[in-house]
Structures are given as structure tokens and as C-alpha cells.
């Protein structure tokens, strides 16, 4: 990335500073034995923005909306309509909406904050294995697998919790370990002998579903991480080629990618929630 004169002028000595784009977030400082990484700092910034905005908006909410409230209400209505097309009912949409909105806002702000000038370009140089390595203070929160994994786990776990609460534990359990199908075999074998073949398949499909759940987490995690990390690398590469003008179109692309990825993540969680809260229908 660009130079880091701010913090490194006195350490720029014999060896060259390494501008390496690591796959992981680098620790900036430690509190006790907890190392605070640059992506965590970025996330804290997101929290600060959200809290400040929330408090500001709370004081502004009125029966007769102003421009800000009108705009936000419009966005919420738009999102509600989109979510309705996935969940199929307004009631379900309203139940899921807060958590989906949180995913969307959290990821979107993280992605866009990662594009701000200074993020990834202001940092310090640390000495590691006799090499000077540049460590930025801020790194897009989603370019850290810890964040995306945490989000994916929350999303999938919440979908399971909603599933148990909505359709009951027995039905939920039979989605994965299909005891009901096994119990049905002796009951209906005289009436319908084909059950002997079908229900073991059902049991096996249930077991596959468990792997499916793990795959959900993996796909959510790596899709988001991959897209945002790739975007960072792309912009950094373009900046390395020519710092003036050339990265601009790619910045616009990344703005779009950030929005789309946030939307995709939110919509996928919504889909999982909808799937988990509807009873098994085959």
C-alpha cells in the first residue's frame, strides 16, 4: 500500500518495509493476554457509529417524520417488502427483521469503512524475523475470518433457535435425525411396503442435513471474507500500479461489492431462518 511516513520515518533504515497483505488481521496492542487486532478496532468504530446514530435518531423520531426519519422509514419499508418475498408473510418478516437489519447494517458499515482513506494505509512498522513489516491500524472488519465466522455462527445458531421455538423440538430433531421416519416403518409396512426403501433414505437425507448446516457456516464465512479481502487486495494492487486515478473505478466497484455482499449475507440468513421455521414438507 502507500507509504507510512507518519509513524515510520525514524525506522526507515537499511531494510525495505514489507507491505504485505496478510490473510489474517494483525494485532495492534494487547490488553492482558487479549490481543486487539486492527479489524477489531474497525468493528469498534462501527459500533461507535451505530450507537451515535441510534441515539441521534431516537431523539429525532416523531409522529410527523422529518427528512431523516422519512428516508429511514422508506428504506425499512423497501427492505420489508423484499423480505416479504422471501418469508412469504409479514408476520414472519417483522419477527426476523431486527436481526436481519443488524446483519445488513453491521456488514455494510464494516465494508464501507474498510474503503475509507487511511484504513489500511495508516499504520506502524513492526520488526518481525529481522524484517520490517507494515501493520495498518485499521483493516476492514470483514477481511478477518474471525468476524465473518462469528457472524455466520450467530446467523445459523439463531436460525436453529428460531426453528426449535417455532416448530417444536420434536419436529426440529426429525429434520436431522429422523426418528419419526424409522418409527413409521413398522407402523405402515403392511399398508405400503415401499416405505421400507423410502424411509431409510429419509433418515440418510436427515444426516446429510447436518453436514449441510456446517456447509452453511463455511459458505457464509468464506464468501464474505473472500469477497472483501479480495477487494482490499485488488484496490491495494491498483494503488501499487498507479496511486492517482487508477484505483477510483475499483473503489466504486468495492462500494458496490460491499453493499451486495452485505445484502447477500442478510438475505441468506433470512432464507435459513425461513427454512428452519417452516415444518418439513416433502
Amino acid at each position: 500500500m502507500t507509504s507510512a511516513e507518519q509513524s515510520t520515518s525514524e525506522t526507515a533504515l537499511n531494510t525495505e518495509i514489507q507491505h504485505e497483505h496478510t490473510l489474517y488481521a494483525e494485532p495492534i496492542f494487547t490488553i492482558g493476554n487479549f490481543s486487539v487486532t486492527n479489524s477489531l478496532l474497525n468493528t469498534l468504530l462501527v459500533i461507535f457509529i451505530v450507537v451515535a446514530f441510534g441515539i441521534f435518531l431516537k431523539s429525532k423520531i416523531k409522529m410527523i417524520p422529518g427528512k431523516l426519519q422519512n428516508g429511514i422509514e422508506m428504506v425499512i419499508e423497501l427492505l420489508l417488502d423484499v423480505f416479504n418475498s422471501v418469508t412469504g408473510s409479514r408476520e414472519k418478516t417483522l419477527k426476523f427483521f431486527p436481526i436481519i437489519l443488524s446483519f445488513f447494517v453491521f456488514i455494510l458499515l464494516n465494508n464501507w469503512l474498510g474503503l475509507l482513506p487511511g484504513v489500511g494505509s495508516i499504520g506502524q512498522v513492526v520488526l518481525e524475523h529481522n524484517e520490517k513489516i507494515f501493520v495498518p491500524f485499521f483493516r476492514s472488519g470483514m477481511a478477518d475470518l474471525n468476524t465473518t465466522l462469528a457472524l455466520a455462527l450467530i446467523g445459523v445458531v439463531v436460525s436453529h433457535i428460531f426453528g426449535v421455538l417455532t416448530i417444536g423440538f420434536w419436529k426440529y430433531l426429525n429434520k436431522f435425525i429422523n426418528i419419526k421416519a424409522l418409527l413409521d416403518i413398522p407402523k405402515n409396512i403392511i399398508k405400503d411396503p415401499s416405505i421400507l426403501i423410502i424411509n431409510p433414505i429419509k433418515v440418510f437425507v436427515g444426516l446429510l442435513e447436518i453436514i449441510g448446516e456446517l456447509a452453511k457456516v463455511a459458505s457464509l464465512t468464506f464468501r464474505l471474507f473472500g469477497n472483501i479481502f479480495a477487494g482490499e487486495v485488488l484496490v491495494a494492487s491498483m494503488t501499487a500500479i498507479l496511486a492517482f486515478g487508477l484505483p477510483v473505478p475499483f473503489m466504486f466497484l468495492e462500494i458496490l461489492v460491499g453493499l451486495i455482499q452485505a445484502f447477500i449475507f442478510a438475505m441468506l440468513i433470512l432464507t435459513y431462518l425461513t427454512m428452519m421455521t417452516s415444518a418439513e414438507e416433502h
Partner: protein
Amino acid sequence: MDSLIEIFHIDIKLLIAQAVNFTIVFLVLYFLVFKPLSKIMADRSEKISKSLDDAKKIEEKLVLIEDEHKQSLIDARKEVELILTKANNQAEESRQVMLAKTREEIGQIINVEKAKMQTEKAQTLKEIKNEIADLIMITVEKVLEKKINSKEDKELIKKIIRDSKK
């Protein structure tokens, strides 16, 4: 799996930290944005539908009142007409009555006058007759003063005058 953790530096503490961060964002958005906004949006739509209903009711009432107003106007006009005709009739009636009364009075007056005139005429005639008789007597006396002086003559004259008086 270990290599995955190694490559991406997955740290359970960081994972939990990010999960907590997300939870904070969720709670803030839920309590400061979503809850009050959705409440106020629901309130507003309720209020709007209520006002629309009210407006409809008001309009209906207005139509009703207008109808009533028109009806009462028509009624009033009818009543006025009725009163007017009544008054006219009454006026006509009283005029007739007055006329009749006046006529009668006039007739009475005429009758009284007639009677008065009659009596007056009779009186006058009587007086005239008396006067004429006196005149005649005086004249006859004067004419006959010298010739007739006798008692029989006088009696005769008196008799003639009496006859003529009758």
C-alpha cells in the same frame, strides 16, 4: 482444521469479541431504531386510517345535514305559503265582514234618516196645514169680516176649516 486456524489466525477470544460487537449493534439497532420506528409507523398508519374513517363519517354527516337543511328550507317555504294564504283568507273574510257590517250600518242609518225625514215631513205638512188653515181663516176672516158676523157664520167657517184640516 489446525492449518485453517493457523492460516487465518482464528482466535476464540476474537471470535467472541466480534460476536459481542455484533450483539451490541443488534441491541442498539433494535432498541434505538427498530422498536421506536416500527411503533411510530404502526401508530401513524392507525392514525391515518382512523382519520380517513373520520373524514368519511364527516362527509356522510355533511350530506345528511345538507339534506336536512334543504328539507327544512322547503318546509319553511311551505309553511310561509300556508301562513300567507291563511292571512289572505282571513283578511278577505274580515273585509267581507266589515263590508257587510258597514252596509248594514249604512242601511240602518238610511232607514233611521228616512224615518226621521218621514216624521219631519209629516210634521212639516201638519204645520203647513195648520198655518194654511190659519192663513185661510185670517184671510177669510178679513175678507168676510164685514159681511159675516153672525154666530152661525162663524160656526160655519170653523166647520169648513175643520173639514179642510182633516
